[in-house]
């Protein structure tokens, strides 16, 4: 099962290096990792998705907590957080295929970000499995390029970590 971990860290050079170095040294597998500064410019939030076999998440949490620049670590409970990922995807498109692409875009809620005589570029922000579904649907049009940000997440409700 995948687990989502939210980590608050000092917004300083080298912190990301320490975290990725920890993951590779302890042989933890990360699915995705996304970083951005918080409302407090001295703090960044990192959202990490890990595969949880053999109590990995407990060790990941504890090892992260040992890093001096890590301020807080919290594993988010399934169903109790909003998790979103942004994807930008480019496909071949011509006058024949464009309407079909547009139909799928409107079903999935994707926006067209760029268009050219031979291509279309869409953007979609949603949960990772919905992005997967959209990407699957686009495959028939020949995907030229895809980029995804990795999930960012926040707890639901008024609480904060």
């Amino acid at each position: 099962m995948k687990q989502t971990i939210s980590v608050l860290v000092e917004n300083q050079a080298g912190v990301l290096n320490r975290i990725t170095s920890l993951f590779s040294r302890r042989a933890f597998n990360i699915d995705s990792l996304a970083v951005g500064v918080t409302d407090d410019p001295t703090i960044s939030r990192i959202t990490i998705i890990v595969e949880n076999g053999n109590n990995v998440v407990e060790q990941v949490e504890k090892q992260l907590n040992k890093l001096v620049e890590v301020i807080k670590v919290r594993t988010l409970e399934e169903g109790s957080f909003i998790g979103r990922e942004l994807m930008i995807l480019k496909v071949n498109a011509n006058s024949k295929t464009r309407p079909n692409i547009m139909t799928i875009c409107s079903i999935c809620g994707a926006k067209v970000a760029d268009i050219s005589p031979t291509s279309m570029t869409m953007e979609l922000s949603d949960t990772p499995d919905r992005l997967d579904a959209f990407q699957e649907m686009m495959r028939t049009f020949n995907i030229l390029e895809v980029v995804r940000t990795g999930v960012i997440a926040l707890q639901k409700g008024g609480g904060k970590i």
Partner: protein
Amino acid sequence: MELTGAQILLEGLRREGVDHIFGYAGATICPAVDVLRDAPELGYTLVRTEQNAGHMASGYARVSGKVGVCLVTSGPGATNLITGIATAYMDSIPMVAITGQVPSSLLGRDIFQEVDITGAVTPFTKHNYLVKDAAQLPRIIKEAFLIASTGRPGPVLIDIPIDIQTQVVRDAEFPESVSIRGYKPSVRGNDLQIKRVAEAISKSRQPVICAGGGVWLADARDELVELAERYSIPVVKTMMGLSVLPTDHPLNLGMIGAHGNRCANKALAKSDLLIMVGSRVADRAIISPEEIQRRMATIHIDVDPAEIGKNMQAAIPLVGDVKVILRQLLALQVPPPDDAQWREQLKEYRRAELERVFPRRDGSVFPGTVLRKLGRLLDDDAVVCVDVGQNQIFACKYLPQKHGRLLTSGGLGTMGYALPAAVGVKVALPDRQTVVVCGDGSFQMSMNELAAVRCAGMDLKIVLFRNHVLGLVHQIQKTEPYHGPFGVALDGSPDFAAIAAAYGIPSLTVDDEDKLDETLERFLGTQGSCILICEVHPDVGTTD
């Protein structure tokens, strides 16, 4: 007032109570070394290779309870120190390593003697800093010493570019204390858990305490002994926890693990309650954590929460400073466990081990025999620094211990540790009887540090087991799946008596067990340092 970065460094070290530095100079650390001439109260040992600065700082830290400090130059100086840092990290030794660095404006250009040392040591330092502004140095130094010495101790590295060492700072402020929001080690144990532990002890029939290096790091020997004695709980030790109980203490059962005492391993296997104190369930000590988990209840007391559940799930985890937790436990009074029968049974195991007869071979001495006799002759509080290999296993298993210390590289198993560590011990405790035990392989890894011994006129007694091979590897190669010894003969080794003499140190050689008593007396009675070369047969094994 104006101070340079180097002067700030010196002032910061003084404020942390540093009284000795183990170092090796080079171009990029020259400004920092230059100001040391103004600090005659600060001792300085010039090592012969940087790795040993780390080991000396380690030996110093382990017996003084203070942070060991080393200072080296950038590039090769820093990379040479790496093994010393990793050795300290694995054994949780409080250490601050200061490295010179190329000018900050040229970082990343691969200029002469530039190496990314903070990047290289990230996996095995507790924390590290690359200083970009000398005005930050007072805070960084304060933080480094705090981090190195509190919680689970460990090495911290401060990399200081040469221009930062010469940068002038006006009115530098030295904080009295620092608070780091991401660093708050636990101290007190959870009261509820403490009660559960006391109840579990009271209810057990076959309890065993397993004492690890954390007992020493927390300075909790007295508390541990009090707990064991109050409830009559037998004690086994890991390699890092050795010497918390004297060998002849009725509750002592020796060292556990792959190379441990049989009686200790038997006690561990048959106990119904295992109380781990400051030990990290390392593979060499606890060979099969799953088995233990299945067979007995476990209590795991450690300052590092990540150690609990890393290799073994404990029934009752207890996080905090070992000394504080043991005091909390001692403050509770519970009925002692009904374990008299258990202790009787263990006494039998122990007797068999202590009365074990060692083999004899003409023309050589057996390490176990030498160490048994040696231990009895040592001062009550002697410090023995032990290297790596068969010599280490023999010493840990058979050297009788009193109320001193046995120091060895337990976690990394770094050959060459013993001699420099002993130099560090002598710096901290000049009057303490200090002994080195090593093999002819490990001795050759650091014998250049005899220069430090000579230079300071130290009294170190060095026991060198000469078996002409890398003994432990030789022993492994003689078993399945290998095809016999290869690449382990120490041909070309020097005449160690001549080496000793070259450093102005006398030596003795013994190859006859009938002469052992007399030779050991002469050895220990020698004024100043002395090397005792013991002829050992290459085929000797650690289970003989």
